[in-house]
């Protein structure tokens, strides 16, 4: 992983000093709330329902064991001993105080961690596939490029006051576990006809009030031009993005208004001034950063480990965990393992300080002291020897991190919702728990197979409800919490936006309606068919009838439009 040098470390510390002084001036009444707001946001600090929330960056989802312990340490010292891993590779602490925020950042800086640009109208934390570098499918490791763009975007003087937030994701290849198509800028590693490494560039994706999937801006960009091309995109957006209405200020609206061809023409025109200039990446810089991500010293291990195969055959619980939580690795004899943060009754993505500490220890014992976080709000140990899997499983089970549900219905992605967030219309966490209770039979959930269920507490869509196979959106109707049911969304390269299927429901009705929708799938599915494939094959009608058909589930329900 990337190790900070003296300059990286100095810049993070200078940021802490700057923010400490800004906070001091705000508390002394020298900086008004309006003046202070954009400054605190660019340091990850929101003012929330009960207390300020701080969003800490986990750049492209990579943490060392020591960094994970530092995160656990601040949750113990400054919060209530737990944190929320978000869909964008951040950790959110919900109970911090404004006065202590500079102290939190100072402590994290000691572990080369920060909250730089995790909020505000700027280039946000850059995300990537949690299996980067170990995935057998990837074209090339996206992490060096994410790190290069992280450095470029950190404290970029020209792009700190954009029309709106700007989210970038890298994907290592065609499987796209980073969901590049729902990002303002999506960068997918690719090779051209001459086997030269570069990027397919996507632009203008985003969820929120106006969900739009990104479009291809450039089929192939040689790697040397990453920074100059990004500069051209950002400058075009900074100068021409709308600023009169914050709901129309994302780059997706500009791209849609101009059409992607015209937007591409403007970017190319701007880029013609920058191409081959000083921002052009050098072989030396690519090599310097890539060296940080060189493969660790893997042992030469056989593809099949007899102890592991034996345990799989003789222990059903172990084998069901392996089936869902253990993933293919590009190196023989190794696997990547997901630690589920979706145990029954657990708020999706939440981890206690103790669990963080255990994950840090396990990453040391069963890997190279590295942990990843991903868009599904789970933790990943990227380099586990297959022969260690039975022992790892026993340890993970004790820590409550072994729920064998990765990619299943109960692996719910959810925002913190109305329990914490001041934007939310509805409480997503209790609903996630109620759905997990409804689907408490692991045999059934396993038989249902791949099903992405996403919950957002409001149209800002932090729970990515538009791209869940089943999406649930909290809406407000005359001060009451209601939920819309959305079907047909999908992730990655097959990305699609789901559609609302009927009237919105009160929270108590949602689990049974989800159950009826799933039951309809169980009746209609072909052998081994995924939920989304059945839905796409037969259309939403029978699902709608199943959900609402036998008597309206709610007399109070009214049809409300999506958005």
């Amino acid at each position, binding site marked *: 992983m990337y190790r900070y040098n003296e300059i990286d470390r100095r810049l993070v510390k200078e940021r802490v000093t700057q923010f400490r002084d800004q906070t001091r001036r705000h508390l002394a009444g020298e900086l008004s709330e309006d003046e202070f707001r954009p400054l605190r946001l660019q340091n990850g600090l929101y003012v929330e329902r009960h207390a300020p929330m701080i969003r800490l960056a986990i750049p492209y989802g990579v943490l060392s064991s020591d960094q994970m312990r530092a995160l656990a340490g601040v949750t113990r010292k400054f919060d209530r001993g737990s944190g929320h891993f978000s869909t964008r590779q951040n950790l959110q602490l919900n109970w911090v105080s404004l006065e202590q925020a500079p102290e939190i950042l100072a402590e994290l800086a000691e572990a080369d961690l920060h909250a730089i640009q995790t909020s505000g109208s700027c280039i946000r934390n850059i995300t990537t596939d949690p299996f980067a570098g170990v995935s057998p499918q990837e074209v090339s490791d996206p992490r060096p490029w994410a790190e290069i763009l992280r450095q470029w975007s950190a404290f970029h*003087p020209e792009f*700190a006051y954009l029309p709106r937030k700007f989210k970038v994701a890298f994907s290592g290849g065609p499987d796209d576990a980073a969901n590049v198509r729902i990002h303002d800028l999506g960068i997918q590693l690719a090779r051209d006809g001459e086997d030269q490494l570069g990027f397919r560039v996507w632009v203008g994706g985003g969820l929120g009030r106006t969900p739009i999937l990104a479009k291809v801006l450039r089929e192939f960009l040689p790697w040397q031009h990453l920074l100059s091309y990004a500069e051209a995109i950002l400058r075009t957006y900074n100068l021409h993005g709308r600023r009169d209405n914050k709901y129309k200020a994302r780059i997706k609206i500009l791209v849609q208004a101009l059409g992607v061809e015209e937007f591409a023409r403007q970017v190319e025109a701007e880029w013609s001034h920058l191409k081959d200039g000083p921002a052009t990446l050098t072989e030396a810089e690519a090599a310097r950063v890539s060296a940080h991500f060189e493969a660790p010293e893997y042992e030469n291990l056989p593809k099949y480990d007899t102890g592991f195969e034996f345990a799989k055959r003789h222990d059903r619980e172990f084998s069901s965990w392996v089936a869902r939580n253990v993933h293919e690795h590009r190196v023989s004899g190794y696997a990547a393992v997901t630690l589920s943060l979706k145990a029954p009754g657990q708020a999706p993505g939440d981890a206690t300080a103790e669990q963080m500490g255990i994950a840090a220890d396990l990453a040391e014992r069963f890997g190279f002291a590295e942990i990843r976080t991903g868009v599904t709000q789970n933790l990943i140990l990227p380099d586990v020897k297959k022969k260690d899997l039975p022992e790892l499983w026993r340890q993970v089970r004790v820590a409550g991190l072994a729920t064998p549900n990765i990619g299943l219905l109960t692996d719910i992605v959810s925002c913190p919702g109305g329990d914490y967030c001041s934007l939310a219309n509805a409480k997503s966490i209790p609903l996630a728990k109620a759905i997990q209770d409804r689907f408490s039979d692991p045999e059934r959930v396993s038989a249902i197979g791949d099903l992405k269920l996403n919950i957002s507490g409001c149209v800002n869509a932090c729970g990515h409800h538009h791209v869940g196979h089943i999406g649930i959106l909290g809406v407000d109707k005359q001060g009451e919490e209601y939920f819309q049911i959305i079907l047909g969304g999908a992730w990655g390269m097959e990305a699609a936006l789901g559609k609302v299927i009927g009237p919105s429901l009160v929270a108590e009705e949602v689990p049974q309606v989800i159950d009826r929708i799933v039951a309809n799938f169980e009746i209609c599915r072909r052998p081994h068919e995924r939920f989304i494939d059945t839905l796409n094959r037969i259309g939403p009608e029978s699902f709608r009838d199943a959900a609402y058909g036998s008597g309206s589930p709610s007399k109070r329900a009214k049809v409300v439009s999506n958005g």
Partner: protein
Amino acid sequence: MAKLIKNRDIVEDSWKVLTLAANDTPDTVKLPVGPIMVPLSVWRARKAELIRREWEHHDLLGVWLGPEDDPADIASDLDDLSVVGIHFPTAGDGRGYSIATLLRTRLGYRGELRAVGGIGRDHLHYLHRVGFDAFAVNQPELAIASLDDFSEAYQAAANQPLPLFRRRTLTA
């Protein structure tokens, strides 16, 4: 007289920034005596008059751009101007940072580039990096320290033509 941060110093600001009131037009607005910065619309309407005024009365001349203005519109006039101002209607309107970048790195402007409007000490470092060398801010004596909030930068910008990775190679 108001004070100004200019070239890392605090100086008296003798300039007047001309703005058009609701009933003013660029053709008829009265030009005050002394050094003035006029909006782009006045510059376009009365270029010859403004240049003659400077020549006859030695009243220094500047133009200020708003966030909607295209700096390319004054590209051929830059030699005539002692100051180019960029107005920030609010701190959150970041277009001025790109306009400054274009003036410095593409249009070759070398004269005084002044930030005016809704900016304060917390913006000075980034403003300086994109090429501003003069800042109309409150309490300039306190604000000036923020020019150096950061001692290094990753990216190239108007005040540093090479990104850090190219400078690393040079010193290695």
